[in-house]
């Protein structure tokens, strides 16, 4: 007597449809709202009746808001995916994309760039990316060897790296003058306001990385059984782990170099979707990508329209994310 199982493919399509729709709504509101006011009607005109559009509003929407919304989507998707992958690889629900020291390295690189006087692009971005990859390599080589990197060593190495970089960051902040200090703080709290249209093509690099992770969804499921069981079921644990680590860190490095350190997205979004969609990564990965994108667009929207003036988006994600996480913990108690 066959056991009825819901068709995975159907569920996947439904999920993509729903979260895709959510994302579209978020994009619309992201473009229609800003610090200069709400213009949903004008956005409508811009898209459908171009001749009647006002050039200044067009400039605001396409040249100022659109790059931000695209970056918010890319960053939200990447960070959520990063959190998901690290939580599975390290089998630790508190894992998030910065846990291997990427955030520390990126911050040190970015602050150095700011102290020296580089512009946001390309100087500070490049140094941030370089810093993140450097710390990643250090942590990997610490935990590496002939075998797949041991998860406990990775975690410890990452935490230590972040702590060390934290000290360096404090040092750099102490040496900074007031103006540089404020710039640095904005970067450290996540800042989507620096992006312009010229930097957007860089984000295309994220797409093949995301596709690769999606391809590795089933091995990621199997890794949850433990390394040996996964290997016994045909997974090349070392190759899969290293690939996932490297690809995810690369994506996160790119996002951090453009947007600074936005926290709580990678930690909270995967848990929310696990509650909604279940533990199968073949569903979780598309959900986190689309849902994470929509979530960060919404947070950035809030950050932009505050009457007191724009806040770094990282503050909004923290203010929403931390209580949300506590709520999830409370719900999950035995």
């Amino acid at each position: 007597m066959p056991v009825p199982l819901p068709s995975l493919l159907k569920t996947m399509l439904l999920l993509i449809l729903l979260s895709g729709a959510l994302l579209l709504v978020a994009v619309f509101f992201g473009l229609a709202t800003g610090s200069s006011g709400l213009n949903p009607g004008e956005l409508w005109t811009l898209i459908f009746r171009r001749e009647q559009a006002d050039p200044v509003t067009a400039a605001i929407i396409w040249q100022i808001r659109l790059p931000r919304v695209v970056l918010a989507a890319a960053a939200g998707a990447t960070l959520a995916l990063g959190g998901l992958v690290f939580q599975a690889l390290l089998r630790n629900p508190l894992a998030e994309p910065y846990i291997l020291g990427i955030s520390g390295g990126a911050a040190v690189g970015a602050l150095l760039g700011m102290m020296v006087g580089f512009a946001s692009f390309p100087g500070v971005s490049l140094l941030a990316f370089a810093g993140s990859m450097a710390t990643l390599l250090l942590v990997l080589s610490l935990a590496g060897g002939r075998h797949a990197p041991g998860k406990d060593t990775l975690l410890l190495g990452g935490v230590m790296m972040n702590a060390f970089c934290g000290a360096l960051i404090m040092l750099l902040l102490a040496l900074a003058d007031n103006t540089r200090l404020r710039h640095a703080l904005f970067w450290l709290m996540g800042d989507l306001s620096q992006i312009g249209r010229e930097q957007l093509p860089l984000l295309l690099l994220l797409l093949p990385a995301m596709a690769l992770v999606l391809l590795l969804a089933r091995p990621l499921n199997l890794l949850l059984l433990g390394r040996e069981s996964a290997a016994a079921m045909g997974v090349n644990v070392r190759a899969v782990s290293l690939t996932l680590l490297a690809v995810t860190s690369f994506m996160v490095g790119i996002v951090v170099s453009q947007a600074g350190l936005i926290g709580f997205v990678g930690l909270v979004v995967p848990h929310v979707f696990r509650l909604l969609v279940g533990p199968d990564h073949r569903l979780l990965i598309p959900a986190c990508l689309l849902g994470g994108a929509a979530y960060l667009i919404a947070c950035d929207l809030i950050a932009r329209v505050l009457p007191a003036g724009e806040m770094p988006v990282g503050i909004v994600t923290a203010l929403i994310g931390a209580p949300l996480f506590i709520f999830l913990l409370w719900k999950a108690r035995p």
Partner: protein
Amino acid sequence: MKITLILLLLCSLWPAAADAQNPTREITDPTGRSVTLPATPRRVVSLAPGITEIIFALEREDILLGTTQFSNYPPAAQKITRIGSYVHPDLERIVALRPDLVLATRDGNPRRVIERLEALQIPVFAIDPRNLAEIKASLSALGTVLNAEAQAAALVADMETRLARLRQLTARIEHRPLVFFQVDAAPMVSVGEETFLHELIILAGGRNAAAGGPAYPRFGWEQILTLQPEVTIITSMAGGQSPEELRRAWEQWPQLKAVQNGRVHVVDADLFDRPTHRLLDGLEILARLIQPQIMAPVPAAAEPER
């Protein structure tokens, strides 16, 4: 694809529209950038409180549409629309005001914002005054740009008159006291030779205790006790502390000459923070505090202490 076409169309139309209604001219700003701006700007946004002060002084506040957060002088400036802060201007709010000219400072405004404004075909005229001579030059430049050359000339002339008078008075002094000028608390920060405050101290007849180091050197009490400044001037917002707290921190060291002689003074930060003509008011206050005897015949311009 369609979006690109729209943008190309709009970008090509914009300057053409500008040309038709508003003839432009090309001026090189004090930072060396060649800027094409309207001959008669009508919608101006300022990215620094000092620039806003100057605009009001040039009597061109009617064309000022937006300014940064702490633009508080003159009081009427507080009613101007805010477009973010000096360190983090809000691009969208600026663009929404449809300015035909933005006035910026190189020191402080992020270069990124200036680049993006220019990418949106909004001309940005930047000043970067580091000393009194450059402040005068900036005043003249802004006067030209805003078609207020007469007012600018008057301001510069006033500055020169007062400077000349001060030089005359301080030419005859015998003793230049050692002055410690404190701009921040916890940690204590003073001003080095690369700042315009240093220039003011010298003009006011003093010697800068913090000369010979970086622009904003830090000091501990040990160094102060060794230096033994004769006069201490503290700006009012140093470290966010009240004038009483700032003074009390000094008065716990009765070994200091400045403390013994009651020459620890707190001054209004706004007069010393901004590179504008009002520095002259600050300068006269400084002179009064550093060389009280020679300044007696000079009328007081503003409250010396708070």
